[in-house]
């Protein structure tokens, strides 16, 4: 037993670090570091750099353009990206629809879509949740009726992240209303420029426009855009839930958030001393550090098991629960560390405008201007991808047999 990384793993880490130092554009890094929202152009510019290096799709099989990294190497890559303030790769194409197409799609679908995902010609969004189907996703109502070579789709999707930039959506639709809940669902690839699609922004409590509602009104989708058989959409959806969940703890982000918290608490003054030296606050930082240490080892245990061939199952739920709680706690402490400076809401700055701050502001202030927004934004971590309460149901059922 040895918890240290091997020399090969450390060499890989150095290689990733060197690449990031050289390839990550300074303007993008600065925005990520400040917590500002990136434009579509910035996301694509970074993802093109990754693709040039062959590192955009770590989870794919090598023959389709994957890296061949094992779960430990993927973890190291994610951790280094977070530490370097690189943008998170928008997951809907590379991380979500692509694995489904690779697993269930036709050869023609693979030939058409996979290269377009790698070179960022297509921006994908996810059409899963509906106003009436959140945690109970299989309760979705969006209808797809067959009309010759087409499906005619009617319904509403919601929480469509970055759908405002997307030209493609993968979508769960009900093709057989008579079948039992899960059985009547199919998986469709829909062109967002089709007539009948309306995307409307949802502004979240942090002031951001990240998610959207998507209305589908008699949208015609070619039958060839169905992945898998009719009625087998739920199989695709379930496959995605267990695929690539090793990064689910968000450990790289948590480590970065802890560094930021310590930095803020170091620069804030409390009764004439750095806040980090005030025992009450310091104790809370120390407690989160313990939680992070424990989560890191648990995460490594799951990664090592995945590397050695076992499929992470319900352990993913444990990592998701504790990882989201930890990141929420870190964002909470960072907000509280700021004191009254947590109050100002600079909407333009948060949306990515460089001049959005008060013109007296220096870079130090810019680095904390998004803290409250991040605190509110992080509330989503315990809600999306199956709320933490749902994760507990899963653990109770599958691990504990309750």
């Amino acid at each position, binding site marked *: *037993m040895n*918890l240290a990384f091997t020399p090969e793993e450390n060499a890989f880490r150095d290689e990733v670090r060197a690449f990031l130092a050289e390839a990550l554009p300074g303007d993008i890094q600065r925005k990520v570091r400040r917590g500002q929202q990136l434009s579509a152009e910035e996301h694509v510019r970074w993802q093109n750099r990754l693709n040039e290096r062959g590192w955009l799709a770590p989870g794919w099989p090598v023959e389709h353009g994957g890296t061949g990294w094992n779960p430990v190497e993927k973890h190291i890559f994610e951790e280094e990206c977070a530490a370097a303030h690189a943008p998170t790769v928008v997951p809907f194409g590379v991380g979500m629809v692509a694995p489904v197409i690779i697993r269930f799609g036709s050869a023609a679908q693979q030939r058409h879509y996979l290269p377009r995902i790698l070179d960022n010609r297509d921006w994908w969004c996810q059409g899963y949740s509906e106003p009436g189907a959140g945690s109970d996703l299989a309760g979705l109502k969006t209808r797809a009726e067959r009309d010759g070579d087409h499906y005619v789709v009617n319904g509403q999707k919601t929480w469509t992240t970055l759908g405002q930039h997307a030209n493609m959506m993968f979508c769960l639709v009900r093709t057989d209303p008579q079948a039992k809940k899960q059985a009547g669902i199919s998986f469709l690839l829909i062109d967002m420029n089709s007539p009948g699609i309306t995307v409307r922004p949802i502004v979240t409590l942090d002031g951001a426009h990240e998610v959207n509602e998507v209305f589908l009104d008699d949208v015609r989708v070619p039958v060839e855009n169905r992945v898998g058989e009719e009625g087998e959409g739920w199989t695709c959806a379930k496959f995605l839930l267990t695929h690539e969940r090793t990064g689910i703890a968000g450990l790289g982000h948590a480590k970065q958030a802890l560094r930021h918290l310590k930095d803020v608490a170091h620069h804030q003054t409390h009764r004439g001393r750095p806040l980090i030296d005030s025992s009450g606050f310091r104790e809370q930082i*120390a407690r989160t550090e313990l*939680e992070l*240490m424990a989560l890191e*080892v*648990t995460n490594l245990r799951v990664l*090592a098991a995945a590397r050695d061939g076992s499929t992470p199952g319900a352990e993913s739920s444990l990592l998701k629960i504790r990882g989201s709680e930890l990141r929420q706690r870190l964002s909470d402490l960072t907000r509280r560390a700021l004191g009254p400076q947590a109050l100002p809401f600079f909407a333009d700055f948060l949306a990515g405008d460089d001049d959005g701050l008060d013109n007296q502001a220096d870079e130090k202030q810019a680095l904390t201007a998004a803290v409250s927004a991040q605190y509110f934004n992080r509330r989503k971590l315990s809600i999306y991808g199956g709320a933490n309460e749902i994760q507990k149901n899963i*653990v109770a059922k599958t691990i*504990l047999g309750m």
Partner: protein
Amino acid sequence: MDFSLSDEQRMLDETVTRLVADRCNPEQRRALIDERSATPSPLWRTFAELGLLAMPFDEEAGGLGGDGVDLMLIMQALGRGLVPEAYLDGLVIPGTLLARLADDSLRERWLTPLLAGEHQLALAWHEAASRYDIDTPTTRATRNGDAWRLHGRKQVVLNAPGAAALLVTARHDDATLGLFLVPGDVAGLQRHDYATFDDQRASDVELDVALPGAALLANGDTLKTALDETLAMGRAALCAEAVGAMEVACAQTLDYLKERQQFGAPLSRQQTLQHRMVDMHLYLEQARSMATLAATSVALPAEPRDYRVAAAKAYIGEAAQFVAEQAIQLHGGMGMTDECSVAHYAKRLILLDHALGDRDYHLDTVMDRLEPVA
């Protein structure tokens, strides 16, 4: 990065696990407690025969050269059975100090029989005002020609009733810390024995004893280094024992929820109780990670070793308390009874936090050394 056990470690794990299952069910455990005497039990002799007593010591000291992970496996298995043998306090802690500090003749007299299972020892360091600090005793050591005089009072000396000799911390006239070997039958040593809440044996010890010059094992920095190493190992061992006990407390609670019928259905159908049970399980898995971190850190240089071990002990103190309290709560009234097995696990889980520094003590260490801003 590798979490797998070696073949030897897997065998060790199976051996101890089987031994505990065969020899320490609740009735056998009760008998072991009732029949304890000043000399080692038959079970302890079996430990010796299986090499378990030699495992945690260097080969040069007559041991089998086991590492932190070996010790973790043993302690985890002992924790699962709540085995009422002083493996840590009677063997590992005093034995490690002797192996580090004693000369050949003292080793032969005290360490060799210790590893052979012929006697046990104890470390006497708690005092009325010491709390968890080992380096500030008020017990005085005075030089008297070639000999020593030790005068003072030790409290809660774990395993003193089963020990052939005590290792006693004392302060020299110049305030330097010293460690002395005090045979149990020396004139001027008075023991007041009692049981602890978690079925260990302990004593308060009055000392006014004369000792030969060779009774001094070590002083000052040499001693401090050996104590720090030994206590780190002991703390890591307690973390592992806690994980073993938490495993059983969780398993028994889960069984109880599935079996106990209320409102016409098993309690395990109640979502509130399901989620509580998941929380216990989360704490268990995180504690397992921390115990692993501690076990693989005991051979590191002092600074990372002490930081990680303190972090693990602080975390596990909290985790163990959560599991203990919820195990009682989910057992309802049954959990309050002496007859209920899980109550004994709960008592051990709560009180092992009081050994070698509790969660507050170790959180303080983490706070003192909080890794600086990168």
